[in-house]
């Protein structure tokens, strides 16, 4: 689905955002794209969307070069940025206008999603609150049924019930042909949705691994005392949340926040284990 080979990108050559980045992303998965502020999560999505061009190396998405912005490519991808401009049209009218550009767009599906989110499609988009706008755009994005869906911080601005709806509708939308990439800081919102997990660090990828692959190598638990081999620990309700190397093969439930902090604190070891 997505093949990135030795890709470098920079806004200023002295401080590269990506340096010889190589990775593959496959269809049928919901990728969680994590990383500290400023490591280039949005840049990564924008390169895949064809809004930015790699300076060196290649990025191929569904056998297209995104930067060429061919209609065949653009009709198979929907990019929903964190901040976006909306039309002065009613939400439903906007969907009716934009939808036909996407061959697999289904208006009924859009209407159903809007209903599920509790957004009035008869209201003008620019008059909606940020959360409502976001829900309307998520509904449109999902109803376009594109092979690749890029969502940048989709749960920002959503209220708690809407986050639940979001998880449900995204999980429902996922199928073997689609690849959904969600960039987020709100890892708890998407804990049971995203798999594999991609952690970006400055210049490169620190981790690109399925949840199963992670739990084979790491164990997550809450203990009363921090063990000596803990890669990372932090106090939480009932003791300490810890990440330790999985030496006994016992499976545990991934705590993405702990995983992320452990990865940041042990970059070299993570790079060695997971790449």
């Amino acid at each position, binding site marked *: 689905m997505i093949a990135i080979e030795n890709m470098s990108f920079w806004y200023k050559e002295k401080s590269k955002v990506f340096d010889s980045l190589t990775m593959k992303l496959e269809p049928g998965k919901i990728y969680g794209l994590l990383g500290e502020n400023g490591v280039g999560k949005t840049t990564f999505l*924008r390169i895949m*969307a*064809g*809004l*930015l*061009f790699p300076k060196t190396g290649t990025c191929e998405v569904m056998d297209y070069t995104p930067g060429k*912005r*061919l*209609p*065949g490519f*653009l*009709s198979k*991808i*929907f*990019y929903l*940025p964190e*901040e*976006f*401009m909306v*039309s*002065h*049209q009613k939400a439903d009218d906007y969907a009716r*206008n*934009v939808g*036909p*550009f*996407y061959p697999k767009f289904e208006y009924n599906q859009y209407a159903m999603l809007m209903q599920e989110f509790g957004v009035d499609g008869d209201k003008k988009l620019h008059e909606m609150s940020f959360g409502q706008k976001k829900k309307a755009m998520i509904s449109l994005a999902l109803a376009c049924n594109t092979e690749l869906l890029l969502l940048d911080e989709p749960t920002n601005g959503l209220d708690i019930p809407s986050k639940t709806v979001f998880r449900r509708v995204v999980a429902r939308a996922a199928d073997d042909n689609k690849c959904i990439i969600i960039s987020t800081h709100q890892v708890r919102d998407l804990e049971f949705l995203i798999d594999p997990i991609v952690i970006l660090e400055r210049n490169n990828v620190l981790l690109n691994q399925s949840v199963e692959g992670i739990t084979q190598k790491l164990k997550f638990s809450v203990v009363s005392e921090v063990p000596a081999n803990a890669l990372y620990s932090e106090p939480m309700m009932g003791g300490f949340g810890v990440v330790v190397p999985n030496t006994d093969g016992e499976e545990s439930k991934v705590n993405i926040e702990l995983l992320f902090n452990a990865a940041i604190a042990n970059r070299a070891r993570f790079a060695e284990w997971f790449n």
Partner: protein
Amino acid sequence: MNETFNIQRLYRVVATETFAFRRYYLFYVIFAAAYAASDILINRTGFHPGVFAGLGIFLIIISPFMLYNDVFHKIKGVNYTMLPASNLEKWIAFWFQNVIVVPLIIGLLWLILWGLEYFLFGRPIDIHIGKEEWSTYLIGILGIQGIAMVGTLSFRRLKWLKTLGAIFVLQVASLLIGRLLMYQFDLKSFIIEIQAANLIPDSSSWLIDYIKIVAYIIFPFGLWLVSFFKLQEQEL
């Protein structure tokens, strides 16, 4: 799927953009109405459509800046760039709005003002432009608008200011290069020699015609071509 041109896609892009620009087009109508009303209230002698034509030409020239100002804005430009249509279709829509739709609206409003002038003040349509001059005027207007089109698709922010700056820099550079060539190759005496040999008999000579043709090809056709390439290479 045809990746370069599809008439249905082009129609959708034009329809989407026309809807998005409806406020600007309404502004032209309101502007014309306000102009007519102010002329009646202040001068009480008529609409002076000739003056309106001047303002209209200015609006035609700056239309790319007005309509497509946000086209490469990091946030506002995403919807436009991600719209599933080819660069050619987007450029044709861009050209169509600026070169056809806007002049057509301004032209229609101008004719309406003339009509009102005739019915209200009894003055018939009075245009002191010959048929041949029309094409020169039209090419001139579209040529200058072409610069605005290139500027719109070349600069991300402060488009009109940077375009003016670029024109100024280019003019100064061409002036300096011209002067330098004059001194270096003694072109001044070369031109005097040509004039003496009667190769440039008057202002309508072959040289002037040749320069005109080259200028017409560059302004606007060359600029339109440049704007197409600029549309392709922009990042946001």
